[in-house]
């Protein structure tokens, strides 16, 4: 795109009929504006702003592409690695997300995809200066990790969330070769076990000798023992280490030693939080609370993987400063929780097991006035009539924690009244995820469906962007969502609704919907069809065990050529045309060729 010379201000050394000499000395007029633009665009960090800027005109598109250093790929199949690296030439930090969230609950076949390898080779070619890589739900092998370790000399951060396919050798390669590594975070990832007859490699000792640059080391999910002496030495030579999350092979006496080595820690995952088998209880009991007193900067505690509740009081010295506490692996009851929680006045994030009961939630509500995020996980996943937490706990939390923004709550019973109360008491709610474990369960007091409760949430919580529904729900609940859930971006539905109309309400009513995951609900082709106008705006749609047919999906595929419709079916010949799973997403490139046999991609 060229600019007319007359519209430019008179710049020194710059005329429209420049002689070759002055051209060498100064850039041509249109290029000057681009350089100015690039300089300005450097300040734009938000990717949505950048996306908008890139649409202004070609020169803004180019300038933006050259200045984007943080690239976010929400779906690894939406765009090919080549297309991404061709457009954005100077990327330092890349985030790629792969499988849909329902893969976490084993609803997706193994080897479905999200292989990192094609991205790995493209990155090695295009971005030798790459510093950060953040992958979520991707499948990556030890070879991929080796490639990462050897291709990027400035590599600083590796964050793997819910990934799988790699093992200790891959981690060791990263530790050994990335000399500038600051962050190595392995979160909820499946790290392949070594075969029984192989020695487990001590990857901790693969970090180079001497002082490290490590700021964050997270390996809670690595299911194999670490060499403690190596770990202690590593911690001792990592003066910048702020985040350390240990796996459950680290015992509490070992934790004690590590904490004294690293009193500057801010985020700590405590490992097992119980004594190892070798040491008899009571044998030279250390004063564990001294370790927590020594780490004066602790704000986030997690771990407690095999906790002996007797040890919990050791964390008292840290409670007053804690903003985040994750006890979701700790089977503690209300009486064990109370003395801890009553000291946590600054707590903003709390993850717990429902073993704390409604009584424990009461204690939380009484003390944690600043609570922003609460997650209550089920200790028992059976469908029972009663459970340890209920509408009582939810209501109490809503009364005590008015600043609540995000809640995930598993329970066996819930009433509309409690949900309505929360919708009124907590107007700042952005994320509301309620999972009533009993499927199709109505309000136990009124025997009504849970429509009104969720309706109140979408009506009253004006900032709501993420919603997960459960319990007995009719189409009316979806009518509410379509009417009031104008900002909703992510919606999770399971065992809900009466008819196609339910899904139609949502697809027609929610303009900001980006991620829709539905399972076991009676929505069929007609319902899907009503979303044609919106599917290009969505990141993905997942529907499993609904009433979709292959024919219906084929029609969608024909109508929208840039949509990939993956039909996942385990049985070859079926009596009817109904499909098991539809996973649908927009894509700029040809359908992928790495899908397993059970996946058919419709065009």
């Amino acid at each position, binding site marked *: 795109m060229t600019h007319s010379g007359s519209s430019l201000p008179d710049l020194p050394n710059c005329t429209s009929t420049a002689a070759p000499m002055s051209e060498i000395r100064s850039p041509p007029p249109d290029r000057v504006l681009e350089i100015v633009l690039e300089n300005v665009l450097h300040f734009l960090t938000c990717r949505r702003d950048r996306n908008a800027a890139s649409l202004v005109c070609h020169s803004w598109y180019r300038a933006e592409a050259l200045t984007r250093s943080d690239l976010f790929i929400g779906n690894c199949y939406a765009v090919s690695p080549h297309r991404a690296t061709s457009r954005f030439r100077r990327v330092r930090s890349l985030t790629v997300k792969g499988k849909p969230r329902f893969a976490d609950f084993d609803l997706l076949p193994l*080897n479905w995809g999200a292989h990192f390898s094609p991205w790995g080779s493209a990155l090695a070619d295009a971005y030798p200066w790459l510093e950060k890589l953040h992958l979520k739900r991707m499948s990556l092998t030890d070879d991929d990790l080796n490639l990462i370790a050897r291709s990027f000399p400035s590599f600083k951060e590796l964050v793997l969330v819910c990934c799988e396919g790699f093992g200790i050798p891959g981690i060791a390669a990263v530790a050994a070769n990335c000399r500038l590594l600051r962050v190595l975070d392995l979160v909820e990832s*499946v790290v*392949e076990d070594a075969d029984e007859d192989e020695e487990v490699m001590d990857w901790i000792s693969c970090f180079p000798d001497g002082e490290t640059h490590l700021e964050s080391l997270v390996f809670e999910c690595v299911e194999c023992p670490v060499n403690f002496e190596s770990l202690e030495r590593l911690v001792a030579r990592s003066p910048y280490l702020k985040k350390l999350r240990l796996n459950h092979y680290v015992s509490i006496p070992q934790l004690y030693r590590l904490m004294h080595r690293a009193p500057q820690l801010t985020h700590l995952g405590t490992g097992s939080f119980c004594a190892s088998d070798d040491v008899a209880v009571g044998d030279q009991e250390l004063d564990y609370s001294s370790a927590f007193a020594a780490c004066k900067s602790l704000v986030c505690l997690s771990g407690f993987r095999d906790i002996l509740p007797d040890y919990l009081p050791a964390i008292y010295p840290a409670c007053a400063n804690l903003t985040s506490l994750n006890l979701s*692996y700790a089977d503690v009851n209300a009486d064990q929780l109370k003395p801890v929680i009553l000291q946590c006045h600054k707590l903003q994030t709390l993850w717990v097991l429902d073993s704390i009961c409604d009584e424990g939630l009461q204690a939380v509500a009484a003390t944690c006035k600043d609570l922003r995020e609460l997650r209550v996980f089920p200790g*028992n996943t059976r*469908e029972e009539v009663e459970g340890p937490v209920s509408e009582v706990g939810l209501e109490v939390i809503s009364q005590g924690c008015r600043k609540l923004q995000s809640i995930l709550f598993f329970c066996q019973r819930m009433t509309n009244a409690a949900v309505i109360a929360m919708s009124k008491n907590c107007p700042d709610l952005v994320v509301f995820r309620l999972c009533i474990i*009993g499927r199709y369960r109505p309000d136990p007091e009124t025997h009504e469906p849970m429509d009104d409760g969720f309706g109140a949430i979408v009506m009253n919580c004006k900032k709501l962007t993420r919603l997960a529904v459960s319990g007995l729900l009719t189409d009316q609940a979806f009518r509410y969502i379509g009417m009031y859930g104008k900002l909703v971006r992510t919606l999770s539905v399971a065992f809900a609704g009466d008819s196609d109309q339910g899904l139609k309400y949502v697809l027609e009513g929610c303009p900001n919907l980006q991620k829709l995951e539905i399972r076991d609900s009676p929505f069929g082709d007609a319902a899907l069809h009503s979303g044609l106008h919106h599917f290009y705006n969505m990141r993905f749609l997942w529907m499993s065990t609904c009433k979709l047919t292959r024919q219906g999906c084929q029609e969608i595929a024909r109508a929208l050529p840039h949509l990939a419709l993956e039909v996942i079916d385990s049985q070859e010949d079926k009596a009817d045309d109904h499909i098991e799973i539809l996973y649908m997403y927009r894509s700029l490139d040809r359908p992928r060729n790495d899908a397993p046999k059970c996946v058919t991609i419709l065009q």
Partner: protein
Amino acid sequence: MEEMVMATLDLITASPHSSSSSSSSPTTDNNNNHPSSSSSSSSSSLCLSSISTRRTDLSTDLRLGLSLSPSHYSTPSREQRSSFDWPPVKSTLRCTLVEKSQISQFVKVYMEGIPIGRKLNLLAHHNYHALVKALANMFRTTILCPDSHQLPLISGNNVHVLTYEDQEGDWMMVGDVPWEMFLTSVKKLKITRADRC
């Protein structure tokens, strides 16, 4: 070991409905009082879960859920759902919780030649492979399973096989029946020397 699991799996995938002994079917689609173990969803998703294992090692595709209670088996049908993928709790958390929760099925395990036995929670494992692996670790030995390809190789006294006592008091080889059926019939386990079987 792998071959044994393969053989068992072939048996399972061939006839998805053969796994569980029938009993009272749970009332479906209505709120309360689902029996604890609502079994797998439609047969198609039985096969689906055969490919939806998280790890590369094999596991049975009939994961009828951790919330098992022996008297509540029923043949899978489309209405009934696996409690393994509902509620939506990640398997890492779920596995940890099984060990801590009251839902457990502890059985005694003896190894031949050792008078003091151990106890093991069968429900902490999802399949034969995991069970054998856990026992091999616990007792520090190699445990084989019956397999026609491997029998000629058995020699020496550090190789064992896994047997169990069933409800009728008979001692049987572990691995012949589907995992869930095994769980309902096992009373105790014994690790015996391979050359004795």
